């Protein structure tokens, strides 16, 4: 198979794009219902409802450093020390203000309306009803992930991950692995915890027996990784091809090689998994966006590559729309319905 970036010979949905130009870099994207929401590098969210004009909603006084979405709201953390929740109508409430005005580096949303955030070496959790809880970790938190069930938060940091049963009296559990862990994800079945490392590699633990697994071979730090809808695959950035680690067996990817799809010249910056099917959207460093079916590697062109790196991808809950955003503020929503 020849490696081309123009992807001239594959089916395209690019013409079904509703384009948009943001005033600032797009750093993340989410959907609330049918409305695409682009998180800008500074200050604001950009709402693009399916009908009607785009509108800008200011939420932070400074950079927006982290965001996470659940069905009814987007939670953002900023360098103004605030954690803000914004609903589909664009109504914002400040959930927390850091007493020391530290940057809110990470946010996560969990089951039953729980929200987590971190500032420096402290992680915070607030359940929908209940007091705010704080956990000190040994170094600055590199990433947060809620377990799919129960109020349990994984906090990645230097030399490992702290697993915190927020409401338990017991001491948090620490999974150790040397190096700096910068992002965390739990598999949808809650069996595996995966972190991205400062090195171009992922680390993983099978939580039942704490068995380590190491996923390496990347050309760059893996800054985006996500499980597919059924949790069978872990899609990852950090290479100029889509690297998918198999998680269908009880051993996960241990002793297995990844599936490699969608090779291109530029590197993959962002991945986003379809909410229902085993399809992955991959955003490349030249602005290319491909939809890749895992089963047979079939590709669909979603956006031609000619510009700034893709920084954000998000599927709507039904999978009928895909939002993309680039570092230069170019953005759009592709109608796949």
């Amino acid at each position, binding site marked *: 198979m020849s490696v081309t970036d123009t992807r001239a010979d594959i089916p395209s949905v690019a013409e079904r794009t509703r384009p948009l130009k943001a005033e600032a870099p797009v750093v993340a994207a989410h959907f609330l219902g049918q409305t695409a929401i682009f998180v800008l590098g500074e200050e604001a969210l950009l709402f693009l409802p399916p009908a009607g004009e785009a509108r800008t909603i200011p939420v932070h006084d400074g*950079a927006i450093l982290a965001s996470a979405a659940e069905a009814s709201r987007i939670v953002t953390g900023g360098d103004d020390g605030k954690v803000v929740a914004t609903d589909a109508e664009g109504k914002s409430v400040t959930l927390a203000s850091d007493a020391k005005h530290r*940057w809110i*580096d990470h946010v996560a949303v969990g089951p039953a309306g729980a929200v987590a955030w971190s500032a420096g070496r402290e992680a915070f959790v607030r359940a929908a009803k209940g007091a705010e809880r704080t956990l000190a970790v040994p170094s600055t938190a590199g990433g947060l992930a809620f377990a799919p069930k129960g109020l349990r938060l994984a906090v990645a940091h230097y030399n490992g991950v702290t697993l915190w049963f927020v409401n338990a009296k017991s001491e948090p559990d620490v999974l150790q692995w040397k*190096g700096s862990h910068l992002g965390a994800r739990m598999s949808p079945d809650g069996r595996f915890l995966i972190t991205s*490392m*400062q090195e171009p590699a992922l680390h993983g633990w099978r939580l039942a027996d704490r068995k380590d697994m190491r996923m390496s071979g990347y050309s760059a730090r893996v*800054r985006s990784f996500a499980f597919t809808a059924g949790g069978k695959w872990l899609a990852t950035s950090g290479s100029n091809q889509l690297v998918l680690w198999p998680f269908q067996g009880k051993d996960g990817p241990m002793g297995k090689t990844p599936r490699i799809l969608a090779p291109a010249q530029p590197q993959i910056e962002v991945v986003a998994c379809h909410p229902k099917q085993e399809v992955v959207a991959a955003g490349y460093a030249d602005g290319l966006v491909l939809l890749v079916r895992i089963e047979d590697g079939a590709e669909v062109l979603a956006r031609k590559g000619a510009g700034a790196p893709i920084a954000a991808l998000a599927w709507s809950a039904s999978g009928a729309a895909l939002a993309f955003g680039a570092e230069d503020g170019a953005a759009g929503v592709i109608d796949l319905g």
Partner: protein
Amino acid sequence: MSDKVPVTVLTGYLGAGKTTLLNRILSEPHGRKYAVIVNEFGEIGIDNDLVVGADEEVFEMNNGCVCCTVRGDLVRIIDGLMRRKGKFDAIIVETTGLADPAPVAQTFFMDDNVGRKAKLDAVVTVADAKWLNERLKDAPEAKNQIAFADVILLNKTDLVAPDELSEVEARIRGINPYAKLHRTERCKVALPEVLGRNAFDLDRILEIEPEFLGDGGHHHHEHDDAHEHDHDDHHHHGGGLKHYHDEEIQSVSLKTERPLDPDKFFPWVQQLVQTEGPSILRCKGILSLKNDDARFVFQGVHMILDGDHQRPWQQGEKRESRIVFIGRNLPEDRIREGFAGCAA
């Protein structure tokens, strides 16, 4: 040529005057906006819109090398600052007095996201003319900061007698003969001397000559001797510096007019930084390679090497290779011997 944001690193032992320099940079009417990353946040007032407190978290990389460290806080903060790109023209990182500059520098080479968006401009070290001699004896950090520097401000010169000043300057030169050195009072220096230096830009490696500053100006001194630090000709450089040899940190300078064999040189230098990485603080080189009409330049921090062809050798330009290593207890004989074996 590059839209990467330049980053200047300010180091210096406690009380040397880093914050004075920082405030001078920020307050002069240059029309540029800086984002400032400071430690000891809140202790001393810094009048700037964008000030970020850092924790100096030094993280080892998982590659089996103890000297491959990055500043985890910089990886995070620079990523965050880049969301506000356009609000500032350059970044200044002020380290604590006890900080090792190497992890800061290495962050720009080891983290692809930082390296894509920002570039290291120079390491600027502020030294206290009155107390540096003492610190060089009792504080390894102070010596490290001198050895690592591209630019040194020998500050508080008004507090010492002229002979004391020459003495401390000679001590600095014994450790790092290559940095640009400026004598200052209250860090008064023209800002182009400390900012926009491009000291880590391969295109700017023009010459590798020791710097001697005696009479207040820059005075280049041509050496024909391949041995920079152990030669006997104690010239009176400008104001007449004494020649000191630091017991611990030295520079080893290599020179040859014979073209180098790339198949010998590169494996040798790779092997050298692999084995001696922890002791090599910095290195820099201009190479004349066999059957190659372009200059090859490289630089390194501990075991990280960065190199490329730079430009064709010009007509009339002397084709010779020059390399300098600055490091701690360097095995000089072994380095010279190895280098001699790289000739084509």
